[in-house]
């Protein structure tokens, strides 16, 4: 039996690289390869993402609003008369009674102060996006770092961070915001930072930590340690990159939370900003038009926008979940 089968017993191996190989290596600079690989990963993830209809719907809504935000300054500069259409200081002289119902000149009518509602809506979109994204970035940066550090070091660091998170979760979110705004003047940027810090050290940190725990025990982390990797090398080169998909996912949910919180605060008139969707509803309320179905255009566009944009980010988050979590994918 042994004599018959003369299959190769030992692998043939050559140490010296041929000239062709050397040339190929020179032709592929590292940064270009990495760029190509990143592009390929984005393309593959897009394919997975786009298979999910709800994700595409969400993305569509976001693009629609982004378009509105971009369109507004163009309209203000070249189409609309700023005296009438400026969202904050304009006054629609062309209408007799304010608030005026929707018409051809004012597609969504005007508010009690005579300002064009559509203009207000489009103008606010910019700040809504800015707020949402800034809060999301802060949340995720803090949450990821907290999660990774708590999971990796364990012990007292973990206990402190987790108890802090428990504390933050226990306190009612909106009430804190209200109290804070009573203590100092809140604008969108401060609001974004506050939301970011509270979310980051709170719930997001806990969720990301549990994911980091599953990464920490993988064999490649041990391999990195054996190679001589320091704690920070392992956290930033191994753990955090593997957390990125989950972090990105949670960014979407953070945006939802931020936009909604702003709407609530603005409604109570607690934010020091000049224009936002929440403020539009606040204006309607202080003028006494809140529950009047005849002046629906004062509430519905703003309210609907808040709902739509929040839902859009949530839907995108849900679709991303399938990209990030391979187990949720269909076969």
């Amino acid at each position, binding site marked *: 039996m042994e004599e018959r089968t003369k299959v190769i017993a030992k692998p043939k191996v050559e*140490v010296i690289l041929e000239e062709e190989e050397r040339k190929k290596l020179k032709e592929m600079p590292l940064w270009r390869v990495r760029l190509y690989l990143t592009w390929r990963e984005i393309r593959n993830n897009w394919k997975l993402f786009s298979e999910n209809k709800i994700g595409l719907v969400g993305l569509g809504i976001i693009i629609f609003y982004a378009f509105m935000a971009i369109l507004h300054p163009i309209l203000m500069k070249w189409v609309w008369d700023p005296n009438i259409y400026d969202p904050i200081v304009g006054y629609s002289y062309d209408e007799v009674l304010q608030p005026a119902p929707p018409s051809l000149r004012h597609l969504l009518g005007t508010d009690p102060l005579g300002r064009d509602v559509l203009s207000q809506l489009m103008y606010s979109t910019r700040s809504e996006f800015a707020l949402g994204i800034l809060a999301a970035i802060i949340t995720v940066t803090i949450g990821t770092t907290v999660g990774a550090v708590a999971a990796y070091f364990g012990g007292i660091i973990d206990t402190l961070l987790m108890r802090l998170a428990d504390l933050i979760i226990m306190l009612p979110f909106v009430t804190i915001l209200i109290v804070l705004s009573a203590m100092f003047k809140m604008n969108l940027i401060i609001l974004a930072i506050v939301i970011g810090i509270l979310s980051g050290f709170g719930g997001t940190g806990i969720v990301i930590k549990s994911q980091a725990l599953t990464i920490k025990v993988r064999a*490649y982390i041990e391999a990195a340690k*054996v190679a001589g990797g320091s704690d920070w090398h392992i956290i930033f080169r*191994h753990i955090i990159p*593997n957390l990125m998909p989950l972090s990105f996912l949670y960014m979407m949910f953070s945006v939802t939370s931020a936009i909604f919180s702003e709407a609530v605060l603005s409604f109570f008139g607690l934010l020091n900003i000049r224009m936002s969707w929440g403020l539009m509803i606040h204006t309607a309320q202080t003028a006494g038009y809140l529950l009047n179905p005849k002046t629906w255009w004062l509430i519905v566009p703003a309210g609907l926008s808040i709902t739509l944009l929040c839902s859009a980010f949530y839907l995108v988050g849900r679709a991303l979940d399938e990209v990030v979590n391979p187990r949720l994918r269909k076969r």
Partner: protein
Amino acid sequence: MSETLVQVENLRKLFPLTRGLFRRESLFVHAVDDVNFTIKRGESLGLVGESGSGKTTTGKLLVRLLEPTSGRILMKMDGEEVDISKLKGESLKRFRRYVQMIFQDPYESLNPRFTVFDTVAEPLVVQGIGDVLEREERVAQMLALVGLTPPSSFLFRFPHELSGGQRQRVAIARALIIEPSFVVADEPTSMLDVSIRTGIMYLMLDLAERLGVTYLYITHDLAVARYMSSKLAVMYLGKIVEMGETEEVLQKPLHPYTRALISAVPVPDPRYKRPIPEIKGAISEPINPPPTCRFLDRCLQATRICKDSPHPPLEDKGGGHYVACYMV
């Protein structure tokens, strides 16, 4: 040149079993209990045992993934003999240039977001060796050496684009790229298909010869240990019960556990009739074990002496064949 490269003395690793926040921990798992052995340069020591024997823990202690509870691990680095069990900080990092590990699971030991280049170059990056171009060249050479040719087509692939055998070759490349003198291989072939396994086994033997690497080969498979190691040590519940030249231990086992283990291994020949393993009971966990012989409650040859004396010492019974048993 048969100088001693690794010398392990009275190595102990105890894991506490925590019982509540305020109760004092009095229960310990004696994972590695008073283990002694030496490995000469160029040799390969096979560490065999079933689950709970302590072989994996020993391996991790030797690469300092774990710190010993007590005992010394002496290694020759740059002509100096150093006790690596107490190293910290910079000297620990320097030590990592001399000792590396190959892991069992080819699917888990590679970071799924790292390219092959990133994975294999990581030891160089961490130890600060070479610049980017030099690293690329060395990685390519290493890939060719482990049989992943042409290297340029493997450099930027991700683990999920490779087969199990290919991934294990990457792991071997990573372990050997900083030219360590000692490598601990923890069951590197047990998760691979049979037809791939022999390729990896021969690769490791070939590279050991070419690059002058000394191995500690951990496995539960005696047949694989036969091929991969020149010396064999059998572990049971944290202790070495038999040690010697591989063929000697396999063909003339002295310790009752070794004999039972060998007779339990299935043989790929239907004509061969195996004897029934002379052993009773089941394997347990070494939690606060009594001072008597660890094998006592499973041994069919235990006598009064075994019950009354402490765990027998590992003694040379002739020709470098060590056994820990009173009945031999």
